């Protein structure tokens, strides 16, 4: 039997996502008003370094590579993100709201896109929502910071004997 992808209501997708677990239903409704479904084909860029970070994404399926390119070398992937992962905190935390990396689609991505400009306005109007989102995105930024520190430590270097 051929598989069908029934469209799922945005509120259900957001409510069931672990990142928004326990969020006040009233706030969830505010989020739904800024959300839409989106699809990116393999090879596309979801965003580019230094571009305006006016949105973030919840990946439903697919693979995204965060890349950085330096002079004289090709793109280096610093992290891959998959289904269930949240992409982007610059829309809220970063001062000028700019993407810090290129986001290249490795495998076709279906995602929920949340409009950061819309959400920032709602956060300004409702500080409780603003605090709740800031708390969750600060946690996400903290996790990424810890992972980055571990990568910088180069723990698999030659200090570890066999």
């Amino acid at each position: 039997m051929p598989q069908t992808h029934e469209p799922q209501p945005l509120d259900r997708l957001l409510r069931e996502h672990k990142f928004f677990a326990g969020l006040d239903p009233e706030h969830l409704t505010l989020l739904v008003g800024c959300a839409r479904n989106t699809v990116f084909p393999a090879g596309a860029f979801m965003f580019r370094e230094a571009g305006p970070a006016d949105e973030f994404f919840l990946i439903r399926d697919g693979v995204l590579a965060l890349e950085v390119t330096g002079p004289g070398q090709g793109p280096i992937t610093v992290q891959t993100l998959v289904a269930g992962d949240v992409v982007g905190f610059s829309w809220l935390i970063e001062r000028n709201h700019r993407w810090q990396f290129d986001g290249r689609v490795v495998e076709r991505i279906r995602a929920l896109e949340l409009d950061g400009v819309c959400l920032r306005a709602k956060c300004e109007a409702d500080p409780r929502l603003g605090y709740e989102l800031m708390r969750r995105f600060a946690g996400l930024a903290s996790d990424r910071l810890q992972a980055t520190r571990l990568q910088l430590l180069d723990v698999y270097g030659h200090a570890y004997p066999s």
Partner: protein
Amino acid sequence: MVMRTPADTTGADTAGAPWVTTEPWRVANTRRESDDTVTLELEPPAPFEFSPGQFNMLYARGIGEVPISISSDPGEPERILHTIREVGAVTRALCAAEPGQEIGVRGPYGSRWPLEKAEGGDLMIVAGGIGLPPLRPAIYQALSRRDHYQRIVLLYGARTPVDLLFTGELAKWRSRFDLTVEVTVDAADRDWRGNVGVVPDLIARAPFEPGKTTAFMVGPEIMMRFTVRALQRAGVPDDRVFLSMERNMQCAAALCGHCQFGPFLICRDGPVLSYRQLAPWITLREI
């Protein structure tokens, strides 16, 4: 005064006959796994029994002796593998060994992976860098008794794609429906199609039931500490998390004290110890 507590992972007590050596073992074959890592296939003079997690002391004549984990299938006692990373004079000499050459071997020493504790539940195996070889015998043994476990999950991290070990075997394991394999590297170029990120981040993505999971882990100690925290966050109890500790083992017979780690001598009480045993000591700088 802190008293030493017995490890709950021991199966061998080799300290009673520390210096018993067999006649030299012959190198049957060698295989380069990466730029700095080689697997030696050794032929023991007689079938050699060991438990997953144990190590041998390998002696390069005229140079010295080092502890190396056994990386082969316990079900193949005529063919013993050791996967060695070049980090010093002895390991360089061992990595340069040619087929037909003889090597001194004593062992097996140390505690084993407590595979029986995972029976009936999920088994999670977490390896970082050169930490995969000491876990491979446990993987072989678990797969040979596959129906004794629910899910088996292997999470493996390395610095870059070219540093990954046992790539052919990883591909075969990945093709199995009864084994979940997730591999990640710290950084990669576009030729790499797999995960990029750190091993602890794989825990949140892995399929397992925390309350019924037993985890075995080998890797750089910092990586293991971060991974233990990820397992704790997920709800895996400390007494179901087992680490293989690496210390400066010189005699392997609990005599010299070089491998002391708090109340433990790693060569005798370890290398495999539960996190419950290690927790008071593992973050102390003085150890």
